[in-house]
């Protein structure tokens, strides 16, 4: 019983130690002088969120979780985190294949969003790759432009 209590205390302390360390670490990064790429990233994420709310949210939902058997989730999937040219092309050309993602099947029509500007596509994909617990590099305009018109 005593041992159990001690273990519990240790655990609680462990929690505190880890979380306070993490907090310090976090604020540390925030306080560091903003480097240009970081500022660029947060601006792109903010702009991308606006694009997402306008064009993506009705199918992929506010939490990026998609819709059961219809609209794929955007949370930690290889489509979102993997090869950037693949997801760029999906936004540009649309997508209407049946796919399996993390064990579940999805089937619906995603239209082309080629009416968006290259900057808007870069922003929305940067937002998606850095939201819903995703963490991945930004998508640059230079990575979108060459893919226009390519299937």
């Amino acid at each position, binding site marked *: 019983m005593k041992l159990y209590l001690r*273990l519990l205390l*240790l*655990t609680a*302390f*462990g*929690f505190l*130690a*880890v979380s306070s360390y993490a907090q310090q670490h976090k604020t540390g990064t925030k306080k560091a002088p903003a480097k240009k790429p970081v500022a660029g990233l947060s601006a792109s994420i903010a702009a991308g969120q606006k694009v997402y*709310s306008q*064009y993506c*949210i*009705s*199918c992929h*939902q*506010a*939490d990026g*979780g998609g*819709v*059961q*058997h*219809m*609209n794929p989730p955007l949370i930690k999937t290889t489509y979102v985190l993997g090869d950037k040219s693949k997801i760029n092309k999906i936004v540009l050309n*649309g997508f*209407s*294949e*049946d796919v*399996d993602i993390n*064990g*579940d*099947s999805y*089937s*619906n*029509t*995603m*239209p*082309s969003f080629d*009416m968006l500007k290259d900057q808007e596509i870069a922003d929305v994909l940067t937002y998606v790759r850095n939201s819903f617990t995703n963490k991945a590099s930004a998508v640059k305009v230079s990575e979108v432009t060459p893919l226009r018109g390519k299937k």
Partner: protein
Amino acid sequence: MKNKFLITSLLSTVAVVGLLSFTTPGKKHIATHNAENAGLKLPAGFKADVIADNLGTARHIAVTPQGDIFVKINYNARRNKDAKGIVVLHDNGGGTATVKTSFGNFAGTGVYVKNGYLYASSDVDVFRYKLNDKNEVIDPDKPERIVTGLISRHEHEAKAILLDNAGNLYVNIGAYSNSCQEKDRQKGSMGQKGCPILDSAAGIWQFKANKPDQHYGDGIRYATGLRNVVGMDWNTELNQLFVMQHGRDQLHDIFPDMFTVQQSALLPAECLYAIKKGDNAGWPYIYYDQQQHKKILAPEYGGDGKKTGGENAIDPAVAFPGHLAPNGLLFYTGNQFPAKYKNGAFIAFHGSWNRAPEPQAGYFVVFQPFKDGKPFGYWEVFADGFAGTPEQVASGRADHRPCGLAQAADGSIYVTDDSKGTIYKISYKK
């Protein structure tokens, strides 16, 4: 020393967190089912039991007078080649059931029992199995293919089925499109002239119930202009087909200048139609606006949210709010429930997704009273709480999603859930 301490506590933290994450979902699940009425909210005098669970994507359901239950499972055929498409339960009474067997190497939605046969559909075919005098399948490995080659193209693939009393089989073939635009679901894209989808989909087809290997050419387009129907039932009082249409999506996404996000969340109506042979419900040229009580010209075909259209299209019998996704329809003919339920319609609403970013809705079973074959008074929510908390309704992250409905031999009703594979039995306590 300090390091060692940190490591010990870290390890135990991980262990505790790990343990929590393993036990919590299971616990929650059991708690839901142990809760009164399996977590459902029901009218006074009714009770609910979970009679089966974890069956997978449990879609439609059919029953026999002997208390056997056939549940159609829409498993992922690409991943689970050995899964079974039909699960057979036996209702033991007292809120319990036993899994008897499972068979059928095709996924899909539709299942129906009639005249000594079990009918079941994949997304392209309809099969039937002969039943013995106890209504058990005689040879589960050798179904007879009745219809084949139906269109299934990434949208509205489910083939709901039923039989009438004159040897006819009815199959829903949903539109492989939202609103027959030149480019499906594309912002601003206009409607295809003389929508070609209507030739082979977006309607109810009638086939012979006993003729093998029928194709489109053997069938009759019984009703058209129905975007997608999943819930349908034969009204025995009127000897007539009734269907629930899933209305179109994305009015705002496609025509943001004409429809606000809020309008798009509520429009158009999900409609109950009483169908006669040759009827046209108007898709894709019109939709039904339940606020204006009018058939409105679709924006893809020159509409603006106000212009009416569809002079030749039928009116709905009942119009429900948008995007609730009616997947099950059942006319209640039993004697167990109080008199007001007799010959009325239960509708299982799977729950919305196309209302985002507005709150989602649905995930309940509704009752629409009928009198003398006509809707009588307003519909009401009959069974609610499938989703879990109000937050789960609003976000659409529902625990359970109602799909299929059937009337039990004892006059109770069954509700399937295609999210967790739960089968509910709802009864009236005398």
